[in-house]
């Protein structure tokens, strides 16, 4: 997902760069009559509008198809494993830290004091899921760990002076 976001951003940013450079290069010679130029520019803008709309709207809808807020239907088999997590200044309290791979896990995240963020990093240190940990509320992360290994948990919401040390681990694999 990060790779896609990065590449799509780069492409869009480059397209804007080309547009701006094109205008800058073509800024030197003056076309005295602005009226006809405006007319052409407006008709190009209409085309541009629809081009952008035809790309953006499907992308916008497509990305709403599978939201992290509810479990993915039939994504995995087996009983749901549950981890209850409470964030504290400045440590994570978990009632278990070991789960089976390829089986659904519900991570129920809350906090005992201030806002924290429960971020799960895979063994390659890539963020794969997160939810805010807030006092009085429980946010549930629905996840299936695809491979065995040690996953790191980092705090994703600033919570004070030891925020960056608020780490723990989840072991995925046979105990």
């Amino acid at each position: 997902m990060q790779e896609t976001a990065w590449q799509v951003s780069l492409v869009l940013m480059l397209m804007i760069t080309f547009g701006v450079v094109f205008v800058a290069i073509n800024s030197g010679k003056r076309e005295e009559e602005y009226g006809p130029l405006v007319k052409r520019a407006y008709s190009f803008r209409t085309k541009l509008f629809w081009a952008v709309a035809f790309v953006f709207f499907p992308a916008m809808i497509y990305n709403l198809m599978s939201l992290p807020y509810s479990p993915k239907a039939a994504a995995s088999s087996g009983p749901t494993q549950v981890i209850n997590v409470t964030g504290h200044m400045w440590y994570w309290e978990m009632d278990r830290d070991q789960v089976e791979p390829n089986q659904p896990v519900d991570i129920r995240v809350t906090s005992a004091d201030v806002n924290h963020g429960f971020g799960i990093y895979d063994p390659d240190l890539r963020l794969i899921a997160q939810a805010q940990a807030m006092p009085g509320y429980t946010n549930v992360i629905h996840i299936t760990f695809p491979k065995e290994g040690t996953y790191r948990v980092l705090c994703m919401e600033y919570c004070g002076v030891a925020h960056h040390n608020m780490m723990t681990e989840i072991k995925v694999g046979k105990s």
Partner: protein
Amino acid sequence: MATYTYTPVPDQGAKAGVLAYLVISCVVLLLMMLFGLLMRMEQAQMISIGALWFYKIMTLHGAGMVGIVALAGAAIMWHFLRQYVDLSTGIFMANLILFLTGVVMILASVLLGDFHAAWTFLFPLPTTSMGMWSPGAAALFMGGLLVIGVGFVLLHLDIARAIISRYGGLGRGLGWPQLFGPDDGNAPPPAVVASTMVTIVNLIGLVVGASILVMMLINVYVPTFEIDPLLAKGMIYFFGHVFINAVIYMAVIAVYEILPRYTQRPWKANKVFLASWTASTIMVMFIFPHHLLMDYAYPKWFLIMGHIIGYLNTFPILIVTGYGAMMIVYRSGIRWDMCSRLLFVSLFGWAVGAMPAFIDGTITVNYVMHNTLWVPGHFHTYLLLGMVAMVFGFMYYLGKPNENAPDSALDVAAFWGFVIGTMGFTMSFLYSGKISAARRYAEHLPEWVPYDKIASYFAMLLIASVLVFIFRFLTRLGLASRDYQRASLARSMAT
């Protein structure tokens, strides 16, 4: 159908108050940039200031930057708006005094009181310090923000009053008769439309912000006065998002006003323009849930609204304002000087930064990128290369000795240093976000450090360039207050 003729207007000099705003902006902006550099260098392990100082500086950098760009944006808006409506200089100065009072309170809270709950002051962190700071320090910080907010409320009330008395209502300030009826060509100029939008959204945003600040201040002293943390977060981000966005919408007035002087082409408030500003007025107020996508406790429709409006919001930026700037510059014979360069590049910075921003507002992306360095990556792009470039462009405009004055090689080098420094710095932020580096970390994991180093060098280049901009402006303060032709005329007209 509107005709496209340009009516020249003389370049007015800045009032003393505007110059006071800008000088203070220069000083604080530079200091906050240096704070930002210190944070990057700490993460890059080039220096060692420790976590406490990192987070104190982070709190100052966040609050200070939001405040100071708002001050600079207000200076631009006020300078141009007063050429159309009758604004009160007294209230303009009262805002500055309240601002400085708030700044002193915040500095005292952080530097003397060790407060470091970040500018977001998410409830209940300010009152849950684990003994790191006192309730008094928290109250001083939030009180400081409140005082600054009150100043801006006064300023916007005065602007609302002036627009209503000149145009007959805020809807008329947004050009609604021309938008929804026949376009009689009498819509208010872009500067007025933008000021009306900013005033509407900021008044609402500031009232919400002040409400949560007052609630939290009461909670400091009466802990039994309970606040729902989810509600507090929603209110804080509503206020924060509206306020920081409004800053760009204030500063863009410089582009609307100055680029037409360089190109001798009008920037007309036609139907598309008016529609886009009315749409922005609404969207800016409903887009804030994109800060809350990882709070599953909110209703789903509310979070999906943040996602959808994030996509829609890019249309006015790209298709109307960005495109509009390209249109009046294309084959205009524009003469490039520091002012026209900076204003032109500011639209690039705004548009290009909006791309990673709306992508971050995609729920499935946010799930793995929220609160990574991707976020400061995008907002530094459109604030620095967008909004701040507009401010410096405005400063070069005010200080330009005469319409044909050439720029020194140093200034031109600083322009490119600014562009390259900012892009290098923000792209390394974005790349760090791509590899999942968390934001607001005093210490980075070893895998993240190389990019912090790269970012630090680009940040140094950027700050060196800004030093040139600021030095140039300060040496030209005497010119800035006079009325004379500043903008170079486009090529074929001048010769």
